[in-house]
C-alpha cells in the first residue's frame, strides 16, 4: 500500500515539475531561445508549479515511510512553510518600507 502511495506521489511530483516547466517555457514572452507563438499566453506562477513539483517529488520518501494522514500533514507543512517564509518576509519588509 505504501509503495503504491509513494509511486503515486512520485508521479504526481514529476507531472507537476514537467507541467510547471512546460508552462514556464511556453509562457515566457521575452525568450529569444523559445520563439513560439504560444509565448504570448504568459502563464504566471509557472515557476511556482515547478518548485512545488520538486517538493512533491522529494516527498516520495515521506510517503514511503508515513501513514497517509501524517504524510498529508507533512507535505502541507513543507509547502505552507516554504511559502510562509516568503509571505512573512514580504509583509514585514513592506511594513518597514512604507
Amino acid at each position, binding site marked *: 500500500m505504501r509503495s503504491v502511495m509513494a509511486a503515486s506521489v512520485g508521479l504526481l511530483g514529476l507531472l507537476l515539475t514537467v507541467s510547471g516547466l512546460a508552462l514556464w517555457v511556453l509562457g515566457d514572452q521575452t525568450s529569444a531561445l523559445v520563439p513560439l507563438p504560444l509565448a504570448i499566453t504568459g502563464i504566471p506562477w509557472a515557476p*511556482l508549479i515547478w518548485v512545488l513539483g520538486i517538493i512533491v517529488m522529494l516527498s516520495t520518501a*515521506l510517503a514511503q515511510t508515513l501513514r497517509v494522514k501524517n504524510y498529508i500533514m507533512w507535505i502541507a507543512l513543507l509547502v505552507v512553510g516554504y511559502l510562509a517564509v*516568503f509571505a512573512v*518576509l514580504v509583509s514585514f*519588509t513592506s511594513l518597514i518600507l512604507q
Partner: protein
Amino acid sequence: MKKGSIVTADEDSILQPIVKTGRAFYIFVGTLLLLTGWFLFSWYTQLNEGLIVTGMRSIFNAPNYMAPNVSGGSPWGIYLANFVFWIGISHAGIAISASVRLMNLKKYQVVARMAEVLTLVALPMAGLTIIIDLGRPDRIFNMLEFGRFQAPLIWDLTAITTYLMGTVIYLYLSLRGDLDDVALRLPRRQWFYKLLGMNYEGTETDKERHKQTLWWLAVAIVPIMVTVHSVVSFVFGLMVARGGWYSSIFAIYFVIGAIVSGVAAVYSVAWIFRWVYRWQSLITDEVLKGISWALRNVLILYIYLWIAEELTTRYMGPEAELRVSEFLWSGPYAIIFWPMAILGFGLPAIILLKPLFGKRIFNPRLTFLASIILNVTLWVKRFVIVVPSLLNPTLYPTGFYMPTLTEVSITLGTFWIAALLYVAFIKLFPIIELDVVRG
C-alpha cells in the same frame, strides 16, 4: 525492559545537551540574542534607508577621473561572498551523511547528524543573505512569478529549494527513530516528541523501511548537492563580460571549494562538541583523523585547481583577466590576497600534511585550528572571486569597494542566527544518532 528505553552511559551522554543546561549555556545564548538584535537593527536601517547605507555602488567609491554623478564601486559585495560561503558550508553536511549511508562508513555515523544540521542551518542563511542583498525583499515573490528559466539565479532558487527540502526530509527520517527514545527519557516533553514522531512504531519492518528510504534519498541528494554549488558557480562563470569569471573550470572549482569549507566546518563542530561535552569516547581521535584526511585531500585538490586557474590567466590571459589578476597580486586587494594565499591556505596545508611526514602524529587541536583558518580563508576567497571582477569590467575600472559597518553587522548576523538555530536544535534533539551507541 521497555522498548527503546535509555540504559547505557553513552546514551545518557548523548542526551546531555538536551537534559542539562548550565550557566555557560545561558550566557552563550544571551550573547547570541544580543548580537542577533544588532543584526535586526542593522537590517532595519538598510530597509529604511536603502542600499545606500552599504558600500555597494557608492558614488564616493567612483574613480576621480569619472563624472561625479557616475556610480562607482561594486554592485555585489560581502553579501554575495557570504551567500557563496554558506552554500559551501551546506555541502559537507549531506555529503558526509550520505557517504556514511551509501558507503557504509559506520565509523563516521557519529558525526553524520552534526553535519546534516549544519546543512540545515547553512542553507536558510544563504537564502537570507540573498534576500538581504535584494534590498527590496517585498518583491521576492517576483522571482516565483516572473523568474526566467534562462537565468542562473533562477536555477539557484530551484536548486537551493530542492536541496533544502531534501535535507529537511532526510534529517527528519534519520531522526524519527530517536524521537521515540527521547520521549521515554523526557516525560514532560513527551507530547512534543510523540507529535513529531507521527506514530512511529519502531518495529523491525519500520526500521528497515526507514533504512532503505534513507539510502535511496542519499542516492538522490548527492547529485542535488553537486548541482547546487555548480549552479552557484554558473551565476559567475557564465558571465562573459567579466574578467576572472568566464571559465569552464568554475563549476568544479566551486564544488571542491564547497567541500573544503564544509568538511572543515564539520571538523570544527565535531571538535567543539567533543571538547564541550567530553565526548572523547564517542568522537574518537580516529574519527577526527579520518575527517582531517578527507579535508587534506580536498584541500590539495582545491589548491591545484586554483594554481591551474592562476597559471592560465597569468600565462596568456586576455587583458580583462590580467587586470583582475593584477588587481589581486599587486593592486589594492593584494593586502588581502597574499595573506589569504600564504597564511590562509599555506598554513592549514602544512598542518594537515604534517602527519604524513616524520612521526605521523595527528594533533586534533592543531587540526581544529587549521579548520577554523580554512573557513575564514574560504570566506575571503569568495570575496576575492566576487568583488575584484566587478571592479574591473572590460572597459574601465569602476573604483573601489569597502563594506560599511551596516553591511558587516548584517553579514555577521547570519552567523549568530545560524549558531542560535544550531543551539536550538541540540536542546531539542540528540545531535548524535542513538544507533551509534547501540551498534
